[in-house]
């Protein structure tokens, strides 16, 4: 059998057991991990040999459906395999290597986000080997760029790398931090790009290219020089970026944060209020992040239709009108061509009186323009007002504009 002899070749090679010595192309490719089924004899495994579509993760026999990845099977069964680059709705890239697991018989650790479950597969999600690899991977991330300032970092409390460092007790002290390679970019109204925090997980690239399909950013350069770039590696404001902020929502660290993130309450300090966007007709579901009676951030709700987390620039960043100093706060009455402030009673009494006079004198001489901007309840009340109080069907709104 071809595979057994190949495996025996690895086993006899002292370096091969460390997962080295074979070139990219082929051997790895076709190694069926199932071949190792007989290596150990534990009871569960023997039972499983005759069952189709089941596998073992951390000693638990689990069923799966065709095409499910190890990660999906694990998550469905509340086995917490950590991930970082994995982005829902996008093709798994296997880039960050945080979700690696040990698959018996496989030559190297495998990324659980990309490998489909197969019958008889035996997986260890937290073996010493796995933990060792994760710790080194996290260590390498923590010492790339600058990750030593959580105390003043806007993403603190809302940072996947911080969570991972905590979970695996990694401090980022083994190597000298590689420091700032590319300068921070803040030359646009919405998004701050801090490359010293970027761990090149690629979630932003996928959010931009696979979720929103705006294709404004991509990987640029190569190797240690790799950087997330726009066209011509220009600033976002001079690129094809449409500032939908999908990348900001996807960024697991603080490489992409709202422009003013350092000046306003951190996401983790705010309270989220779920609501519907008030711009176009898509009706995106969004969270308004509130603290001290003020909206500081807006994020898309990931679990529900119709937008599943996506927003556009207006929905995500066009909320400063709420707290605008130009808001009308008191009724105004025009006298001699100029407005003066008035009390609610005065303004409403005046209005009621004039409407009554005009409507009383001429049928259908009063009209109401209700609004495609206000709620159903308010539209209902407006038309009810026109029809029952003003006794007219002269009600319309700008449906046609």
């Amino acid at each position: 059998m071809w595979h057994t002899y190949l495996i025996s070749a690895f086993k006899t090679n002292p370096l091969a057991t460390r997962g080295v010595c074979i070139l990219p192309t082929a051997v790895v490719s076709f190694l069926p991990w199932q071949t190792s089924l007989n290596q150990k004899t534990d009871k569960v495994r023997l039972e499983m040999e005759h069952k189709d579509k089941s596998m073992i993760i951390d000693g638990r026999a689990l069923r799966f459906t065709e095409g499910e990845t190890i990660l999906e099977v694990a998550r469905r069964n509340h086995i917490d395999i950590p991930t970082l680059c994995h982005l829902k709705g996008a093709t798994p890239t296997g880039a960050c290597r945080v979700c690696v697991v040990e698959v018996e018989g496989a030559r190297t650790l495998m990324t659980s986000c990309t490998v489909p479950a197969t019958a008889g597969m035996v997986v260890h999600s937290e073996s010493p080997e796995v933990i060792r690899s994760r710790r080194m991977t996290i260590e390498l991330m923590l010492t790339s760029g600058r990750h030593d300032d959580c105390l003043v970092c806007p993403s603190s409390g809302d940072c996947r790398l911080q969570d991972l460092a905590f979970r695996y007790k990694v401090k980022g002290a083994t190597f000298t931090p590689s420091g700032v390679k590319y300068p921070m970019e803040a030359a646009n109204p919405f998004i701050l790009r801090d490359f010293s925090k970027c761990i090149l997980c690629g979630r932003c690239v996928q959010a931009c290219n696979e979720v929103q399909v705006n294709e404004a950013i991509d990987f640029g350069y190569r190797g240690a020089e790799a950087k997330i770039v726009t066209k011509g590696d220009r600033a976002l404001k001079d690129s094809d970026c449409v500032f939908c902020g999908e990348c900001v929502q996807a960024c697991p660290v603080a490489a992409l944060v709202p422009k003013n993130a350092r000046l306003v309450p951190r996401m983790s300090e705010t309270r989220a209020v779920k609501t519907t966007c008030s711009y176009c007709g898509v009706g995106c579901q969004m969270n308004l992040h509130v603290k001290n009676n003020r909206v500081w951030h807006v994020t898309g709700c990931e679990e529900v239709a119709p937008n599943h987390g996506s927003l556009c620039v207006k929905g995500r960043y066009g909320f400063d009108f709420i707290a605008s100093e130009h808001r009308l706060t008191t009724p105004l009455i025009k006298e001699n061509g100029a407005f003066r402030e008035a009390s609610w009673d005065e303004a409403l009494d005046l209005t009621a009186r004039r409407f009554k006079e005009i409507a009383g004198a001429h049928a259908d001489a009063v009209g109401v323009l209700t609004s495609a901007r206000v709620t159903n309840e308010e539209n209902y009340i407006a038309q009810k007002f026109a029809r029952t109080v003003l006794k007219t069907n002269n009600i319309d709104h700008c449906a046609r504009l």
Partner: protein
Amino acid sequence: MVMDHHPEHPDVTAEMWTRIDTILDEHSSVPGSLITALRLCQDTVGYLPPPLLDYIAEGMNLASSQVFGVATFYSLFSLKPKGRNIIKACTGTACYVKGIKEILNHIRNSYSISEGETMPDRRFTLEGVRCLGACGLAPVMVVNEDIHGNVDPKQVKGILEDYQ
């Protein structure tokens, strides 16, 4: 896109634009031909200034960021102007063992350029390249189309003086 006007760039002449338009016409509908189109455009202009990359992206109907990503991934492509003469010093193992480092040092001392750099007067561009597969002649230095094998560091200056 209505491709009815070209961006302005000092290094791209009207004839070059015509040639570029032809290249883009030929390749825009062929899937996967971006790298080929980039190579041909670079052959036309000498390098790939970013406005040209944007133009190629529009012509090929690809995202400009993707085109930039591709252009900066492959070492063949240069986004900066190159010299009239290109020195390619092979940095493969055989040439390394046989002392390419010293040759690079000599060039650096004589012309004040390091790997990847171009002289201000654009006389030379120095590139360290992957194994040229001429290990039998190590160390190897290629100037434009001419292969110079078994190069002695002392000869370097003599060889290069022929290229102006």
